[in-house]
Structure formats: structure tokens, C-alpha cells
């Protein structure tokens, strides 16, 4: 039994966090947009059908690793949480599953778009930056290095 447990324990790191995907309903949006205690929360919106999103997520992850104390990174896919399996797999493939991850869970998904950012029409990728002082910024499209530098 101990050997079996050890085998599981060795497998786990490689597959860690694939089960941490959480739903995001309209009622959850205010908490997600609540200013962090310090630094900035980056809400990285992406979708399975968006080829631009993967490099954008990876660039945001690199930025977060460079500023681990200033940036809290959360990924949110606009795909339904019903696609949990595909979403978790994609996050794992991108090595993004170390970050808190949300997926839309709402009968009218465009309503979450509007609540997250009324200046956003649903295009992906979209990045929302919520600063500790309560200010917010939204950017559509894969971010350029210059845009990434200005995020904080």
C-alpha cells in the first residue's frame, strides 16, 4: 500500500491542479473584480477557439513570474464550464494550471462579458487589470511586449 501511495504521489505533481477549474457565474464577478490588497490582479480572458490566446497567456505567466509579489494572475475562459475536460487539458498543456482558473457558468454568457467589462464585446484574448487602488484597465488582443511592460 505504501508503494502504491508513493506512485500516486509521484504522479500528482505532473497532473496537479487540473481539477482546480472553478465556475464563474454572474454573481461571482464582483469578487473577481475586487481590488487586491496590493499590486494588481490580472484577469486573463481566453477561449478554446482562440489561437492567439495561448501565447498571450504564456506571456502573462512570464510577467507574473517576473513580478510574483505584485501580480496575481487568474485565467478565465469564456467557454462553458461544461467543457471542463477540454479546458483543463488545454490549461495543463500550456502549463497554466498553476494559476487559479475559472470558466463561464451562466445561462447567458454574454452577460458575464458585460459585467466583467462593459467596454468589451467578447473578443479574445482580453486582459483586465484590477489595481489595488481600484482602477481598472482592459486590453483586447495578444499583448505586445510594450503593452505587457505597461500593464503594472
Amino acid at each position: 500500500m505504501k508503494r502504491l501511495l508513493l506512485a500516486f504521489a509521484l504522479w500528482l505533481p505532473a497532473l496537479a491542479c487540473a481539477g482546480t477549474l472553478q465556475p464563474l457565474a454572474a454573481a461571482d464577478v464582483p469578487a473577481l473584480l475586487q481590488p487586491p490588497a496590493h499590486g494588481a490582479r490580472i484577469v486573463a480572458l481566453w477561449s478554446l477557439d482562440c489561437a492567439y490566446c495561448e501565447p498571450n497567456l504564456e506571456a502573462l505567466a512570464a510577467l507574473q513570474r517576473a513580478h510574483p509579489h505584485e501580480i496575481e494572475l487568474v485565467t478565465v475562459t469564456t467557454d462553458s464550464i461544461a467543457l471542463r475536460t477540454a479546458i483543463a487539458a488545454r490549461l495543463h498543456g500550456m502549463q497554466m494550471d498553476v494559476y487559479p482558473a475559472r470558466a463561464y457558468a451562466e445561462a447567458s454568457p454574454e452577460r458575464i462579458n458585460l459585467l466583467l467589462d462593459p467596454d468589451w464585446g467578447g473578443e479574445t484574448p482580453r486582459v483586465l487589470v484590477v489595481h489595488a487602488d481600484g482602477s481598472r484597465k482592459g486590453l483586447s488582443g495578444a499583448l505586445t511586449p510594450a503593452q505587457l511592460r505597461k500593464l503594472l
Partner: protein
Amino acid sequence: MRHLLIALLCLLSPALLAHDGMRMEMPKGPELGASAAFDSHGRLYVVDAADGHVRLRHSDDDGRTLSAPVEVNATAERIYAEGENRPKLAFGPHDEIYVSWSQPRAEPWTGFVRFARSLDRGEHFSEPLTVHRDRAEITHRFDALAVDSKGRLVIAWIDKRDLLAADAAGKPYLGAAIYYSWSDDGGASFAPERKLLDQSCECCRIALARTPDGEVAAFFRGIYGDNIRDHTYAVLRTDGQTSQVARATFNDWQIAGCPHHGPGLAIGIDGIRHAVWYEAKGKPTIWYGQLDPGHAPKHPLAIAGAGAGHADVAVHDQTVWLAWNQVNAAGYALMLRRSSDNGAHFDAPREIARSSGATGSPQLLLKQGRAFVAWNTAAGFRLVEVPR
């Protein structure tokens, strides 16, 4: 010890499922993609997808009741059926029923364009065929289907073969390409595909409409310069001539991303090209305008803003209708604006239906000068007659 083992197993199972899911790419959002059209007898037909089948239903009472579904593809296959990538429906000159759809392949962002036809008003369908000769496991998706005045079928789609070729050669290439094909034998076979242009947007539907000359015109999101996602207009030539392609919107919205938001087009018998499109250079905006390819559209009007999406347009004589989805706290409103002077002015937006659940993109349909909106909602398909 046993409890610890169970806990570990619980942690593992979603991870293992997730791994399997790598090859089970699914389309974005609820699968409410549907298309509807009236045949020459005024019978309404609807296609959507369920359980691996494109299914056809019809209604002889303007959508109040729908027939039992007929399976278009007898053998189940995967089908894209979300708003920008929905099964399509068109009729031949003798009410032949033509259906196309995009079939997801194993890898993300891949697909084949599929087609089947019925020559007996939907009782039986031909074995589906793949429209394009290229069989690379890449994007051939976002099909659009129309029939010209000679009965020739035209299918256009988004195609990534040139992107991959450019990547392999180390050359820069933005977006995808628009390809099209046609059938001179009522969909029994299709001509080898032709490229319309390089560097189109990758994830927005293509709008097709018939010109007064009976040809099929396309309006779609292109890429200009450094990811300026404005729109392009072209008549799809099927006579061996080169299609003339021109930029038709000039909003200069720059985005290295996926708008997931294609345009709409309706052409009057006077040749006026009524169009709707989305851009978000400043605030998210849906525009109406009359296309003047090569120049900025005439009579531009911002018809809707935040929370609005997926507009469609129709024209009959001097009347122009615009319909779109509007998100609100209760769900979705189906919104409408009408012009009685051929698009020079529009009345105020008004809500003509609402849905508490998800909806597909609205589609304006005309029957004997009356306008309807086909609206596929989570609660079922609806045909909403536009109040006069």
C-alpha cells in the same frame, strides 16, 4: 490509509479526463448555432445539430410547430454548431435543399467543410461529401452557403493552408485565407477550390448575399496592415474570371485576436449593399452602412453598443430591417430597428422578444415582403414575426 488513497484517486480522475480531452476540442459556447430559411412554397426549414447529426426540421405554420427532425448525415460525426460557425441551409431553383456545415477534426482549430443535399424536400439526404480537395488536418471552417440565380451553389470558408505554408517557409502571414468552391450540378460535385484572398480574420462568419445580377457576393472580416480587422467585399466569380476584392469598412480596429463576430449583408434589387458589422476600436459598436467597396460605407449609423451582438440585416423594396441580440440583467433581448427609406434613417431600437437563457445569432428572413427573425434559444427554436 484507505481514506488517503481515495482522496488521491479523486484528485487524479479529473486530471486523467483532462488529458483525454486534449483530442476532444469543442466549439465555444452553447451549441445553439442554427440556420433557417423559407422555400418557394413558404415552408420554413431549420437546421441545427444534435448528437453528431445535422438535423432538419420544417414548419408549415411559420414556426409555431416544427416537424420531427430528419438526420442530414446518417452517420454521426462531430459538428461545429456555435453562433459564428453554424450549419447552413439554402435552396436550389426547384426547392432542392442544400446543407453545409464544418466538421471539427481531432486537433484544435481544424475542420472540414461538409455538404449534403435532398432532392425530395428533406425526406432523404445524399451521403455527405467534403467540399474541398485539400485534406490537410487544418482549418477549413466557418462555411457559408448560397445559390446564385442560375442555380449554382457557392460555398466559401476560412482556410489556413497558406498560413501553414508561410510558417513552414519562415514567412510572415497574418490570419487565414478565404477559399471558395461551387457546384454546377446541384451539389453532386464541387469544382476545385479557389483562393479569394490571403490574410483574412480566422474566426468570424462570412456573409453571402445575391447581387441584382444574380451572382453571389461575400462580405467578411479581413486583415489590413498590422492586424487592422476591417471588412472586405467581393463578388465570388465562378466563370474563371478573377474576383475583384476591395476593403469596404475603415474603422481601423486593431486586434491580434479573435473577434468571434462576423458581419451581415443584404443587397437590394437596386444594388444597394446594406451591411452590419462589429468593431471595438473605441467602445464596442455595431454599425450599419451601405457598402461602397474601396471607400467608406455610406449612411453609417452606430446601431448598438455595449452588450449588443451578432446583428443581421434584410431588405425588401425600400424597407431595411436590422436585428441583434442585446444582453440585459434578465438575459437576452432580441432587438430590431427598421428603415422605410432604404436605410437613410432608422426608427428607434425596440425589443421584439426576450430569452432568459442563451441564444444563437438572430437571422432575418423574408417571406412575401414580411420579415421574421429566426432565433434559436436554450428554450427552443423561435420564429419571431417582426411587427408591422
